[in-house]
């Protein structure tokens, strides 16, 4: 750590302070010409703050429209916040002078998307998909690049020979493994998982969740885990934040949260989850 001082411990991998994001609501062209009317905005995220220590998983839970995906995009630098600060290992992601360090920061942040169908370019071979971050950050080229791609594919449980294939030749679970291999390719320390298993079947979901857990402990990764599924969150995260209409209504350690959530909304969410085994009711 360059900026660490004796009094502070190691900076958290991600820290988010007072994050807000507004979206313009589309207005018909002629009405925009009427003067004196402010453009209406929709506040998707309001004043959200949290941090994730190294090697931990923080889960953001919410229903559709809760702003969880907007936060994910701001945290990885795809969407600029209207207000607030995103710090990656202590560095401001959106600082104006960070343009040259931006690329260095980008290498440390990666993302695994929801739909493995859409997150892999259908016209690219797997070797090009997984190799793209390696090439973009100049980590390797030629034979060394091919070797790295093969290594990453093996890490996620695929074979080196799969590099020559196209995404459509794989099942949904395997495609998500390829997406994870691509996320690992830039050797990041922080990965945002945006609903990584909600498009997958249950038996495959378990495989992918276990893979993410193994990678975390092997590589010391830090996760921001976005999900609508409380059971998955209970399994994956050490800490949980509940979002309702862009506001963080509750934040707690997973154990505390599932023992008895405080916010009314969290209680409602928890009680709405279908219970699969109703114990021994015979």
């Amino acid at each position: 750590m360059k900026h660490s001082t004796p009094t502070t411990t190691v900076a958290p991998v991600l820290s988010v302070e007072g994050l807000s994001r507004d979206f313009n609501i589309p207005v018909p062209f002629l009405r925009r010409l009427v003067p004196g009317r402010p453009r209406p905005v929709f506040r998707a995220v309001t004043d959200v703050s949290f941090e994730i220590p190294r090697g931990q998983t923080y889960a953001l839970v919410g229903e559709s429209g809760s702003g969880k995906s907007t936060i994910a995009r701001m945290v990885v630098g795809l969407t600029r916040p209207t207000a607030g600060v995103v710090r990656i290992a202590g560095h401001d992601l959106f600082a104006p002078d960070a343009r040259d360090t931006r690329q260095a920061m980008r290498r440390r942040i990666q993302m695994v998307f929801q739909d493995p169908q859409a997150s892999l370019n259908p016209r690219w071979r797997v070797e090009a998909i997984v190799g793209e971050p390696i090439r973009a950050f100049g980590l390797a080229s030629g034979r060394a690049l091919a070797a790295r791609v093969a290594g990453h594919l093996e890490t996620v449980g695929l074979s080196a020979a799969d590099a020559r294939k196209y995404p459509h030749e794989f099942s949904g679970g395997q495609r998500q493994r390829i997406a994870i291999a691509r996320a690992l390719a830039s050797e990041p320390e922080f990965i945002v998982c945006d609903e990584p298993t909600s498009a997958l079947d249950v038996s495959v979901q378990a495989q992918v969740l276990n893979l993410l857990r193994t990678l975390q402990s092997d590589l010391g990764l830090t996760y921001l885990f976005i999900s609508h599924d409380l059971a998955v969150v209970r399994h994956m995260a050490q800490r949980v934040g509940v979002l309702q209409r862009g506001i963080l209504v509750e934040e707690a350690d997973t154990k505390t949260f599932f023992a008895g959530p405080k916010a009314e909304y969290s209680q409602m969410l928890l009680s709405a989850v279908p219970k699969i085994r109703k114990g021994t009711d015979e």
Partner: protein
Amino acid sequence: MTRVTRALDSDLMYSFRRTPGAMIAAALSCALILGAVLAPVIAPHDPFDPSGLSILDNFLPPAWDAAGDPRFLLGTDDQGRDLLSAMLYGLRVSLAVGFASVIFALILGVTLGLIAGYAGGWADNLIMRAADIQMTFPAILIALLLAGIFRGTAAQGASGAGPLALLVFSIGLSFWVQYARTVRGSVLIEANREYVLAARLIGISAPAILIRHILPNVMGPVLVIATINLALAIIIEATLSFLGVGVPPGSPSLGTLIRVGNDYLFSGEWWITLFPGAVLGVLALSVNLFGDWLRDALNPRLG
């Protein structure tokens, strides 16, 4: 499997082999294109060699006619040129102008469509409003207008490839809108797909994302439009040539031949118009049918 066997095994080839119409259309198009390309080899005469022309041979009917001459299978025109040879060379010009203007329109339209779709904002507005305005005029009118303007400004000293390039430019410019609209629509969809976000995430530049990621995924519909437009471009070229604002008289296209023949149609020399007209019709029809099949085959919802 090699690339070739895999291509032959694809669903597209399967559909192709199961659609006789498409196969006939493709065979006819290929035969005509081959004839045009090989014109210098297979044409019995060189219609542009003045020393080989004899004015005594003019207006000879086709060879099977009692007054015909076996040297000229499909008869001769007003200058004694062999009509078959003139048509093969004319086909060359027609196809060259058609292909070139489609390629020009494709490059222009795809580029503008990519920019409009990905940049959005004022660039999108500017490009798409220009497209809207152009769409209100028929393509032939625009081509006619542009060809007229260029002809007027470049009339002095223009020779060789110059007029042809202007023709290609005018026809191409009247076609770009379709490509731009299609590509823009596809880009709007593709740009929000997660593979594009993944590329943005690692700092890949906008031009690189457009060319390497998005372009290959929007080319399918573009190629279908290009095929159908090829027929249209050939017809527009023929129309312009027929109206006298097309290719220069030195290198006659099918349209020029039809116009020349038109002058003699009512004096009994029907073959000068009929044969080039038939070839033009067959060419446009087969290219069009092939394009229609391609559109249906690539769009499972219609099939």
